């Protein structure tokens, strides 16, 4: 075909974008459903049961309810910023999704289809940079509401994001040193070449990444920007209807993106377990996309599980943990990794 750039760079990505835009909001609805169910089971309750069998139609009923809600802008709010803030969060979340390699490429109708919308050679850097933009949404939304609780939530989110982003970046850096590439698909290939997932090479980094990821996405036990028992609903107290649901969508998109990044960095992305061991080759019949979904699903479940288990940190404990524990440990992890790499290289080469 003579104009492959058109199909490779325009049509297929646009199709994938369309699929994600169409499917992901529904998926978020069902993540919320699973969250309510799992939290209920943890507390020996049933969770939603009334709408449809086992409450399976509850997310759809909720979505319809949100559609009919009034879109309120507080009188003294900065209307433009107030309306823009949830859109920033949503755009950031969806943009993050486009970086993740979700499965091995395949050929359909004579076209090569890659299951990542963009595969840039600085994927990790770009992804982290874009995810950091979500802080703007929270800060702007909280400030523009011209109300006290949202402002407090916004300030908390700014401080929290900054302190945990540093630890997250140092943690990721150690992985990048081993992989020798910033490309997300390159990292998966590096894990295949090495024969093990990086969770076995970077166990400390893995745990650090999980905790920093929870803090980064403002989920319990680090949900201080929302903190419904202290700050009503934190930065989105004044939002209603669809703009409120934009915040929810953005939060769950961020959860999915961070889980996807974790899976890519430490658990071999869409590869089956033990990618080089012949013994497990019977697992090959499961396509990579399914492996990816299973792994990401596990970590989204972990978010819910953590929420059902731990109480919220106090604010000074959160900052103390970030600056006094996570940043030093991640730096030490980075140094030790670098040292071991040098030793390994001099021994091997």
């Amino acid at each position: 075909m003579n104009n492959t750039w058109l199909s490779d760079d325009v049509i297929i990505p646009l199709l994938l974008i369309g699929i994600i835009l169409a499917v992901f909001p529904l998926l978020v609805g069902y993540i919320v459903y699973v969250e309510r169910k799992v939290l209920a089971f943890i507390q020996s309750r049933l969770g939603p049961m009334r709408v449809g069998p086992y409450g399976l139609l509850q997310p759809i009923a909720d979505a319809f309810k949100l559609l009919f809600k009034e879109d309120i802008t507080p009188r003294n709010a900065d209307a433009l910023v107030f309306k823009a803030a949830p859109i920033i969060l949503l755009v950031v979340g969806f943009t993050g999704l486009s970086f993740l390699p979700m499965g091995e490429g395949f050929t359909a109708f004579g076209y090569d289809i890659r299951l990542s919308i963009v595969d840039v050679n600085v994927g990790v850097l770009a992804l982290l940079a874009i995810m950091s933009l979500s802080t703007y949404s929270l800060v702007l939304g909280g400030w523009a509401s011209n109300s006290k609780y949202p402002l407090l939530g916004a300030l908390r989110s700014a401080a929290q994001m900054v302190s945990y982003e540093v630890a997250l970046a140092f943690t990721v850096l150690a992985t990048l040193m081993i992989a020798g590439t910033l490309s997300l698909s390159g990292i998966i290939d590096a894990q295949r070449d090495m024969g093990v997932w990086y969770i076995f090479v970077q166990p400390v980094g893995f745990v650090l990444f999980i905790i920093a990821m929870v803090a980064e996405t403002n989920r319990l036990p680090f949900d201080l920007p929302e903190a419904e028992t202290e700050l009503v609903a934190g930065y989105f107290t004044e939002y209603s209807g669809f703009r409120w649901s934009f915040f929810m969508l953005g939060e769950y998109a961020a959860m999915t993106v961070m889980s996807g990044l974790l899976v890519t960095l430490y658990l071999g992305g869409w590869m089956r377990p033990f990618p080089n061991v012949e013994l497990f080759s019977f697992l090959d019949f499961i396509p990579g996309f399914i492996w990816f979904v299973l792994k990401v699903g596990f970590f989204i479940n972990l978010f819910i599980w953590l929420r059902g288990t731990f109480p919220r940190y106090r604010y000074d404990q959160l900052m103390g943990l970030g600056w006094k524990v996570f940043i030093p440990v991640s730096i030490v992890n980075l140094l030790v990794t670098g040292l071991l790499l040098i030793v390994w290289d001099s021994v091997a080469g």
Partner: protein
Amino acid sequence: MPAPKKSLAATALLTDLLTGLWTTLRYTFKPNVTVRYPLERSVLHPNFRGILRVDDDLCIACFLCEKICPATCIVLEGEKGIGKGSKYATFFYIDHARCMFCGLCEEVCPVDSIYHSNEFEGAVFSRADLVHDLAILHKGHAIVHYER
């Protein structure tokens, strides 16, 4: 009381957090305790103090229940019948809006005439309907059960 000292290894391996996660994981797979009330109802204890009923064949109109009621929700009147010990209640009102279901009337009744039933669905549209007269007290009030 100072917090118990933890070893550095226990802190580094996040043992406390893992213990917590293990607890919630076990509870996730335990049977739940929710009773989906209108669709299913739990079995009540026989001593459950529900809506008051009066067996007026037994009542001797001794006024003990009226006297002991802390909420003064019982009003009755009696008259003598033919023969010894044949006093009976002519009217008997219990205001369930005032009743606190303490069970004192049931305890004090010498002939076990007034008793708490196992019935708890007493919702009505008017407060006046909560005052039960002798006819309702005898045969029980009309209960509307939930139906799909």
